[in-house]
């Protein structure tokens, strides 16, 4: 009697779940309009000429043999890392403060954290043009104080770009950290303190390691998003700081060189996927 009863239970639970076939329309939509275009992108990148007559790896040779292209790729990856580091340095303390705040303050803090997520990227980037521009807030303050005579060029500089990207993507770092920090058992910190560890030691040896999964999740999002942030990169970086998305757009739209633009896209996709894989591996290690 016993086994049969449990089997009928299972049947009811199964009945309650929905059929996987409900996912078929979206799966079909993705197969046609997402996977096929990505495969076509690879196909086009494997041609030497825009008429798609000569098959070959010419475009990839062209990219990998060109020091300018490699510099663009390297600069993109390095700036992403700098943005992620800055977001972690400032975002972790904010998540820490959020978790320790009373309820009424949490609502206000959450509003401040979420507003940039939903505000248009152009609007957020526009703010940085006002701040970093020739007549912007930084230059006018420095000139009023008499520290400089002529406006500094802050727009179109690496420092300006990193700061702007960090602000645009900060919420993606802070939100997973809030989740991770609110799951840490406060008793552990008390136990550590009772055993004689100082506050810094407890923070660095107990709190931070316990939130490692959140740190990795936040870093993954921030890194990938700042690599692909075309609008902020072009507006704040300008022509002097060309990064991969701008390079793709330049080759595709301005020069109409689709095979080369496709090859850059494929290389960029591989770079982003490699970054995701590395972060996922780190995440798995952190869980063990």
């Amino acid at each position, binding site marked *: 009697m016993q086994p049969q009863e449990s089997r009928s239970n299972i049947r009811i639970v199964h009945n*309650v779940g*929905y059929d*996987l*076939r*409900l*996912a*078929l329309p*979206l*799966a079909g*939509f993705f197969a046609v*309009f*997402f996977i096929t275009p990505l495969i*076509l*992108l690879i196909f*086009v990148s494997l041609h030497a000429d825009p008429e798609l007559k000569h098959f070959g790896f010419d475009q990839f040779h062209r990219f990998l043999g060109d020091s300018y292209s490699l510099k663009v790729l390297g600069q993109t990856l390095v700036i992403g890392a700098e943005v992620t580091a800055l977001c972690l340095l*400032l975002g972790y*303390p904010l998540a*820490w*403060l959020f978790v320790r705040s009373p309820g009424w303050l949490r609502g206000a803090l*959450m*509003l*401040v*954290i979420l*507003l940039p997520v*939903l*505000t*248009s*990227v*152009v*609007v957020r980037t*526009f*703010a*940085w*043009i*006002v*701040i970093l521009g020739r007549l912007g807030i930084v230059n006018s303050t420095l000139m009023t104080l008499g520290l400089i005579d002529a406006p500094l060029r802050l727009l179109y500089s690496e420092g300006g770009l990193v700061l702007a990207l*960090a602000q645009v993507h*900060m919420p993606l770092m802070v*939100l*997973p950290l*809030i989740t991770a920090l609110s799951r840490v058992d406060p008793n552990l910190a008390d136990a550590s303190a009772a055993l004689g560890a*100082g*506050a*810094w*030691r407890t923070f660095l040896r107990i709190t931070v390691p316990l939130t490692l999964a959140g740190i990795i999740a936040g870093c993954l999002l921030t890194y990938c998003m700042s690599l*692909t942030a*075309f*609008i902020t990169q072009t*507006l704040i970086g300008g022509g002097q700081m060309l990064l991969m*998305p701008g390079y*793709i*757009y330049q080759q595709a*739209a301005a020069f109409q060189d689709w095979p080369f*633009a*496709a090859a850059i*896209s494929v290389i*960029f*996709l591989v770079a*982003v996927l490699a970054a*995701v894989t590395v972060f996922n591996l780190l995440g798995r290690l952190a869980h063990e």
Partner: protein
Amino acid sequence: MRRRADFGTASLHLTLGLLALACLALLILPTVIVIMVSFTSGFSLRFPPPGYSVRWYVGLLDAWQLQFAALNSLKVAAWTTFLSVVLGVAAALGIARSRRLGAGVLDSLFMSPLILPGLSFGLGALIFFSLLGWPVSPLTLVIGHTIVCVPFVVRTTVATLMQLDPALLESSASLGASRWYTFRQVTLPLIGSGILAGGFLAFMSSFDNIPVSLFLRSAGTDMLPIRMWQDLESLLDVQIAAVSGVMIVATLVLMIIMERVAGLSRRLR
């Protein structure tokens, strides 16, 4: 010993507190500065503004190009949200709570547009449509936007389905309700806020999309963020500050409504 421990705690809290305040300033100041500059009486983006006026907001009433672009963006975002909710909710029902291998694979597939570069997808989609012989049109735009916006609906709907107590559905079924009746009367009201939050995020992200629109719009379909981006690249127009001001206020109002109605902040974590 006691005093040393107190010093350690104080210095840790001071360091973290100051960094957190710096982070808050970094998050808030740009928005405040845009709002202030949008009320400038001058013709440049000088900060602080030489004087205050609403002239640039009044100017918006005559800026027909911007109005036209905003209307296009709203239409595309509305269709994208509709398509994303229909396809995304069905898919979420299928993959949530399913232990089949296929469900996990589909979940990763549906989430991948969030991480992959939109510009690469946009270029691929343009090549695809031109090989099919479909000219770029509002239709291709909506299709492209749906690919990059549907992940929001799938994610929030799956998350609410996972929190759903199966006992509720079981009791509805055991009381003789049909599956469709259970879905409408029990499941849908319980996951409604998740769908609403996902639909809202999809709408905002479609309205703001540039990388996909750049490749898939026709010359006649001007989109608001592209118009603003191009204006900023060429002439640093103060008019854009007023548009930004309107968009910030609209976003803030919608966000507060969504927080009340759908618990938005819980869905984003």
